[in-house]
C-alpha cells in the first residue's frame, strides 16, 4: 500500500496529525523515535542527530556542516529503508526532501496558524507577542536556508507537495480524514516503477551513509543495483580514491556494480599549487 510523508511548520502539529492518521489507517507512524537506534548504530549522540535535523550549522564552520551532512546521511538511510514495508506515515525526519518522486508516497505540507505559533513561542520563552512574531519570522528564514543548504530544496515551496493543508481553516480531525481518504486514490498506489524508484533511493542512501564519514562530498545515485558515485578529487589520487569508494560501496547488500565519476577538485588543486 501507499505511504504518507508530512512536513509541518510546527513539529508537534506534524507529529500529532501523523499519529492520528496512522491510527486511522492502521499504518505505522515513523518519526523521531527511530533516532535512538540510528544514534546507537553509528555511535553518535541522539541530540546531535536532532540538531542536524533542526538547526542550521554555522555558516563559517565547514567542519560542523560536514558533520551535519554525515548525520543527515545516517538518518536518511534509516528512514528510507522503513518505507520499503509500505503503510507508513512519516514526519519529523525531513523525508519530504529526500524521498521525492516516488509516486506511491503522498507528500503533505501542514501550515499552522501563525498566531498560534507565535503564542506558543511567547509562552515558551516568556516574551511579548510582538517579539515572538519577530522570532517566528527569523525561524522561518533559518528553516528555509537549512533545507536549501542540506538538500537543495526550499521546503516552504508548495509545489514540492501533493497537498498543502492550512490548519487555521481545516480542523485537525478533518485533515486526518482528508489524508486517509486521499492516500487511497488509485494514483498513489504502488506499482513496479514506484517500488523500483524507492528501492533505488534506499540503496543510494545506504551507500551514501557508508561513504559519508570518509568522503563527505559524494553524491550517490542508484538504478537497478548499479550505483553511480560522484566525487571531487585531485588528479594524483583519483585512482586510489575511486578504489576506496568502490570497496566501501560494494559492501552494501544489493549493490552489484559501482561506477565512480570524479570531477577535478579545482579549489584544492589551486591551493596545493600555491603552497
Amino acid at each position: 500500500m501507499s505511504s504518507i510523508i508530512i512536513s509541518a511548520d510546527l513539529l508537534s502539529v506534524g507529529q500529532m496529525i501523523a499519529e492520528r492518521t496512522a491510527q486511522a489507517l492502521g499504518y505505522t507512524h515513523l518519526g523521531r523515535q527511530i533516532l535512538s537506534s540510528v544514534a546507537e548504530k553509528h555511535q553518535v549522540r541522539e541530540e546531535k542527530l536532532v540538531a542536524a535535523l533542526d538547526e542550521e550549522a554555522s555558516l563559517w564552520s565547514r567542519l560542523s556542516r560536514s558533520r551535519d551532512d554525515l548525520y543527515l546521511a545516517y538518518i536518511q538511510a534509516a528512514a528510507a529503508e522503513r518505507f520499503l514495508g509500505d503503510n507508513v506515515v512519516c514526519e519529523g525526519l525531513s523525508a519530504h526532501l529526500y524521498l521525492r518522486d516516488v509516486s506511491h508516497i503522498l507528500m503533505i505540507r501542514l501550515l499552522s496558524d501563525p498566531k498560534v505559533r507565535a503564542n506558543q513561542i511567547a509562552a515558551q520563552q516568556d516574551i511579548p507577542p510582538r517579539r515572538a512574531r519577530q522570532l517566528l519570522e527569523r525561524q522561518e528564514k533559518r528553516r528555509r536556508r537549512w533545507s536549501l543548504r542540506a538538500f537543495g530544496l526550499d521546503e516552504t515551496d508548495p509545489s514540492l507537495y501533493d497537498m498543502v493543508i492550512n490548519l487555521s481553516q481545516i480542523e485537525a480531525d478533518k485533515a486526518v480524514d482528508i489524508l486517509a481518504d486521499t492516500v487511497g486514490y488509485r494514483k498513489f498506489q504502488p506499482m513496479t516503477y514506484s517500488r523500483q524508484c524507492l528501492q533505488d533511493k534506499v540503496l543510494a542512501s545506504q551507500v551514501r551513509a557508508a561513504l559519508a564519514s570518509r568522503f563527505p562530498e559524494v553524491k550517490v545515485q542508484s538504478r537497478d543495483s548499479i550505483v553511480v558515485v560522484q566525487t571531487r578529487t585531485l588528479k594524483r589520487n583519483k585512482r586510489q580514491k575511486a578504489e576506496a569508494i568502490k570497496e566501501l560501496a560494494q559492501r552494501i547488500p544489493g549493490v552489484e556494480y559501482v561506477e565512480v565519476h570524479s570531477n577535478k577538485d579545482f579549489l584544492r588543486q589551486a591551493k596545493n599549487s600555491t603552497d
Partner: protein
Amino acid sequence: MSERLEVLILDDEPIVGKRLKPALAKIGCDVEVFVDPRAALEVIDGKDFDIVVTDIRMDEIDGMQVLEHVLKKSPRTKVIMITGYAMMALAREAMDKGAFDFISKPFKPDDLRKVIAKAAQALGSPIDFEAGADNGA
C-alpha cells in the same frame, strides 16, 4: 493452469515484442505482438484479451489512449504500461486511468513475467511463474 492467457503486446520498437513473446510463451501465454497502435486497436475491438502490455510514447496514438480504449471495451483486462520516459506524473496518470501496473524500460523479461503472474492472479487464473523463470529470455 487450466487455460492459456491471451496477451497483446504493443510497442513501436519491434525488438520489444520479439524479445517478450517467447519469454511470455514459456509461462503459458498466447501472445500477439503489434508495432502499429491502429492495427492493435482493431484487433482489440474484435477480441477480449486478458492482458495488454503497451508502450506509452508512440506516434499518432499513445499508450494512454490505448489504455482508455481497452478498459472501455473490456474492464476486466489488465493493462500494463511500459515506457522509457517514466516520470512520477505519468505513472500516477496511468494508475489513475486504471492501469494495472507501470514499468520503466529497460527491464528484464523476468520483471515483466512477474507482473504478468500478478495480473494472472488478479484475473483468477494463476500461472506457473517458475516455469519460465530465467533472465536469459
